[in-house]
């Protein structure tokens, strides 16, 4: 489902600091624009807060949605390293546009493509040094988030940008469903809902009904490894395109991931084994010493 965003003129009326605006992408309840504000080019995110009219849980659901956006902005403000996207000049503002509620804020505009787009465009398979850099970047991002009590929960090729800047080649995006181990849970009626996630990139432990008691950053290690695997091999380690959601989840829970070395024999055994190990179903089997892993990926040990 994709919503129809308001016109650019209406957005400019609601956010007068926006000078130029052009739609870049849109999804469920969110649209992303390239804007100029105060002379800077930035990415503007506009999120619809649905009315959920007729839904007895409307208030809770709206509260949850607003809470998630606030959490994303707070998390981005706390994680200031180059591996995560930075906030822009426009703070989070609630507005009403044509009788609908929205929130909007800006992030830095990143020149480049996300990995999903690159994969879809048929790029050549990346060399190991690039894959190591990608994994190290994701590990740094996970470390920064965890040090602030967050788990990303939605690391996937679509949420990683590849930039042309050699000093900052990869950036982790979209903390929209980040989980905080330090804050009150946001999910309304958690017992009656599937976990928030992209099912193709779902750490198996998140299907445990009690995952909120035990979740930690090793769920992000799983999806980071999955992202690296897919970028390296240009195929998903588990899912198949024809699978429905239940089949995808079943594979995540029960099927061993394909060894990376079988698809990329040119990569070092050590690198492939590490990615394979990160794709184990039990979190305890995923190496969790982030500093050690980053050093290893960056060739320091």
């Amino acid at each position, binding site marked *: 489902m994709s919503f129809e965003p308001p016109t650019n003129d209406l957005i400019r009326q609601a956010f007068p600091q926006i000078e130029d605006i052009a739609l870049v992408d849109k999804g469920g309840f969110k649209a992303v624009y390239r804007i100029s504000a105060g002379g800077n080019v930035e990415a503007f995110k506009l999120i619809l807060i649905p009315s959920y009219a007729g839904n007895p849980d409307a208030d809770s659901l709206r509260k949850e949605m607003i809470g998630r956006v606030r959490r994303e902005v707070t998390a981005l403000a706390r994680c200031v390293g180059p591996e995560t996207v930075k906030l822009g000049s426009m703070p989070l503002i609630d507005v009403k546009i044509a009788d609908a509620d929205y929130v909007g804020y800006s992030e830095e505009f990143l020149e480049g493509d996300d990995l999903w787009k690159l994969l879809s465009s048929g790029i050549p398979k990346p060399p190991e040094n690039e894959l190591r850099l990608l994994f190290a970047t994701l590990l740094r991002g996970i470390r920064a988030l965890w040090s602030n009590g967050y788990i990303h929960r939605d690391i996937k090729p679509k949420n990683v940008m590849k930039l042309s800047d050699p000093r900052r080649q990869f950036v982790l995006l979209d903390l929209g469903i980040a989980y905080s181990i330090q804050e009150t849970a946001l999910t309304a009626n958690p017992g009656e809902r599937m976990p928030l996630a992209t099912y193709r990139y779902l750490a198996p432990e998140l299907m445990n009904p009690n995952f909120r008691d035990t979740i*930690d950053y090793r769920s992000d290690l799983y999806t980071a490894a999955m992202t690296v695997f897919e970028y390296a091999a240009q195929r998903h380690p588990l899912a198949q395109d024809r699978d429905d959601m239940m089949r995808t989840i079943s594979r995540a829970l029960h099927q*061993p991931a394909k060894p990376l070395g079988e698809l990329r024999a040119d990569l070092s055994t050590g690198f492939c084994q590490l990615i394979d190990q990160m794709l184990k179903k039990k979190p*305890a*089997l995923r190496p*969790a010493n982030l500093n050690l892993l980053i050093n290893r990926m960056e060739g320091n040990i």
Partner: protein
Amino acid sequence: MKLFAQHGAQEGEKINEGLARGLLDGVIYSPRDVSLDTLRGKLDSLAEASAQAARLIDPQYYAIFLNGTEEARLGNLLEDYGAYFQPRRRGQLERENQIRQDLATALKFQTTLNVTGIIAPNIVIPNSLNSIEAVIAKNFIRLAAGEYSKLNDKRPMYATLAISRNALGDKQELVEFLNEITLLDEPPGGFYLLISARNTEARSDIYNTDVIAAWMFINHTLTVNGFNVINGYSDVVTPFLGAAGGMAGALGWWSNLRSFSLDRFAPSAGGGRLPIQRYLSRALLNRVTFYEFDQLRKLAPGVINKLPTDALYDPVVGSEPQRNLEVIQSWEAVKNLNSVILAGDQRRSLRNCSTAVAKAMVAYEEIQGLGIRLDPKSNAEHLQPLADGLRLFAKLAELEGGAK
């Protein structure tokens, strides 16, 4: 995989002999069985004679609940090691401050000694990994590195993880427990891992599918997470633990130094006879009595290790070794098993384990075919649990295909 001597009572020259023959990579001393003055001397002598050998002390804090029990066999712990070995009740250890204090004193005590690494104290988790004792044990593990860092000592520090075999049956609890101890804000350098049997004579306590699988799985999980694992009292299971990733194993000369049990510290149930000397056969993955060996070496020569210490079992005297040299043969056999089974690559090592078990089954069948009846401790009862334990371990560790 390294092999350490598990020190105990009546050491004599056993460890020196083991070191001199190049069979040992270090020693884990038992304070219960050595006065502090003597221990200091031993550590200094060992450092001088074998500088490369690891010198460790098991603080044996896990016996602390017996402190105050009449006739508990705590040896030198009460007087010479009173700096950290004070009476405790479980309720006291439910307080984090008490744990911190006990960690601090036990760690500080060891830093004054000429050891190459420090072993942090802990209690034994007796029945369940989802219990008050498990929470206490996790707190000891969680807090150990923080307390140790205050001492500014650069030697590696190992957290003790002591679990009763009874607590290993529930795999879900085991996985959840490992989930927690592999994610620590201040991790130790490694673990000193003990699996406790109800008593040291209960062979089936350790040779049990769930126990073997869990012991291997703990080694594997901790190693994957970058921890070095020293297995105490691991005896013949040592190479299997090595295949799972363990860094070291240990065994000593008495049965209570080859299988860990708090029974060793509890009041004695009565006197006992000296055990019959045994021969550890690589082919059988087990010990047989010297007189069984004397018979088997003629009829089923496959049980002979063909290692230098075979000479200690002289057929001229009915293959009876000197009692104090029995352990030398054990150390050599386990060291050799380590070198044969452990191939560097985990999958290959696990296959080697399976092959060793399968070959042992064949060897026992051959013995049975000869009409030889073996003593209950010498028989093949350990093999099926080893074979099944390997398979269960591979499943738990998500290594399907690694062990068949």
